[in-house]
């Protein structure tokens, strides 16, 4: 069991008040708050270690390089990658997906080929694929979902064809909370030799991820959704793919030799890390992973699941509430609408009462179109949230109903 009060003390921002109301932060699917260990790590780096890495032979540069490369090993262990050079640091999930879309497509996508995604993707796992499909005159295919927000798995076989070059799918839906059966999906795709990219942005803070056990070809995550800083993320890629893929961006760090006639590229992982990286961010991410490991991902999931069920029970009592996404297997977020109240109106009043939830289309417009709604109210819970906060949230929603209902 974990002591939530103790954990809350680690997060300075949770003491914030919004005018006279204590902050209730239920927008964790957008970004989680940061523990003091992460904040201190970033500050320590700039106070004591700041230097450019992989370059100078001087003391600080060596120290910074060592810290950066240790962080890579921490991430390797966290995702259970076979090799540390399969961990590429990026700006976040979006860049990780763009890197694969761009670089993989350059080499492996041709005219009339297909890229498969799902109907519940975030825009960042739709648009990069659309762009490369357009460039290569390839086609984007979509596996549909049902009214509960679950993938229609029966359709999978017919959508995975000899034309499918890659299947990109989210582990956990950011707008519905659905946890997709990715292990089964990967198995089916691999039976037809189709590589699979997993968007893990919403998953890593809630589920134990083992890329070798999943056997995924690519796995993408953001630091800021797992208690780490913004502007940093990870791309895990199997060595066999990363070796074959051309560089994504050119610059320093990613080269071996440069002449005006020809450049030879550095080996993995540096081939994909052009320019000076966000060293402080990577070290902050490492501290965030250590926070998760110390707390225990199972413990975190247990707290979050309990909050989810508690909130769900309370919300069901409201009139005219419609839950968007009723998947059996789900992460700790609830998306809903009141049939007679616009999400923007509800969100504005909740904000005035000190409650941070996300309202709108959650960068998943196709999902909103599917359900025929302009957006939802999304409450997403994290390990530092409490039942008392959910009670405050429920009271605030009663106020919303009183004002608009």
């Amino acid at each position, binding site marked *: 069991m974990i002591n939530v009060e103790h954990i809350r003390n680690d997060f300075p921002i949770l003491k914030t008040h919004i*005018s006279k109301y204590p902050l209730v932060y239920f927008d964790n699917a957008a970004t989680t708050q940061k523990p003091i260990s992460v904040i201190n790590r970033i500050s320590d780096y700039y106070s004591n270690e700041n230097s450019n890495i992989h370059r100078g032979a001087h003391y600080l540069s060596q120290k910074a390089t060592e810290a950066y490369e240790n962080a890579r090993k921490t991430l390797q262990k966290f995702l259970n990658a076979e090799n540390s050079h399969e961990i590429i640091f990026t700006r976040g999930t979006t860049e990780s997906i763009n890197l694969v879309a761009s670089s993989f497509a350059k080499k492996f996508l041709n005219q009339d080929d297909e890229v498969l995604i799902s109907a519940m993707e975030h825009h960042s796992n739709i648009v990069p694929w659309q762009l490369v499909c357009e460039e290569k005159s390839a086609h984007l295919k979509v596996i549909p979902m049902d009214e509960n927000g679950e993938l229609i798995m029966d359709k999978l076989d017919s959508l995975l064809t000899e034309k499918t070059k890659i299947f990109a799918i989210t582990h956990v839906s950011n707008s519905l909370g659905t946890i997709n059966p990715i292990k089964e999906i990967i198995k089916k795709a691999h039976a037809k030799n189709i590589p699979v990219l997993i968007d893990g942005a919403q998953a890593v803070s809630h589920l134990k991820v083992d890329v070798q056990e999943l056997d995924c070809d690519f796995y993408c995550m953001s630091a800021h959704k797992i208690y780490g800083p913004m502007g940093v993320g990870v791309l895990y890629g199997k060595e066999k793919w990363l070796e074959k893929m051309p560089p994504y961006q050119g610059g320093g760090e990613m080269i071996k030799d440069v002449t005006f006639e020809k450049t030879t590229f550095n080996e993995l992982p540096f081939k994909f890390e052009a320019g000076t990286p966000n060293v402080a961010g990577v070290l902050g991410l490492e501290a965030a992973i250590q926070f998760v490991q110390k707390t225990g991902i199972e413990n975190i999931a247990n707290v979050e699941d309990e909050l989810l069920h508690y909130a769900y029970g309370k919300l069901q009592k409201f009139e005219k509430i419609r839950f968007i996404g009723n998947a059996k297997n789900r992460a700790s977020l609830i998306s809903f609408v009141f049939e007679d109240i*616009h*999400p*923007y*109106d509800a*969100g*504005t*009043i909740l904000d*005035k009462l000190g409650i941070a939830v996300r*309202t*709108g*289309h959650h960068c998943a417009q196709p999902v909103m179109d599917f359900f025929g709604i*302009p*957006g939802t109210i999304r409450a997403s819970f994290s390990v530092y949230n409490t039942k008392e906060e959910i009670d405050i949230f429920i009271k605030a929603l009663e106020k919303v109903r009183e*004002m*608009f209902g």
Partner: protein
Amino acid sequence: MTIKEIEQEIISEFEMFDDWLDKYNYIIELGKSVQEIAPQYKEQQYLIKGCQSQVWLHAKLDEGKVVFTADSDALITKGIVHLLIRVLTNQTPDYIINTELDFIEKIGLKEHLSPTRSNGLVNMIKQMKLYALAFKTKMQNQ
């Protein structure tokens, strides 16, 4: 009345409220009471799309003055839309183009014009000025 006089009138009305709840209840009431845009203008070409809420805006020129009607799918947005129209409708194009509105800030609703809200209001104000500019050009060419 001039734009500035109407702005002042609204500011005085809002001074009566001492807490945010009364203020928002009033905006919601305005949103409920506002005269809706004619159905033929509730179409894609009049739509100002926001991430969170949407606004439909129509403008016509009537005896040298711009007449606006508008609507929104969210009540709070609609209430603020109502205030914006009250200030800018029935004014000359020149006057609309050259006047900077500051009443929204003074009545404490500035947050609804922040880019993160993306409720269509910022673009609505821009669009109102663009209509005025278009009408001005049209009048000059006549």
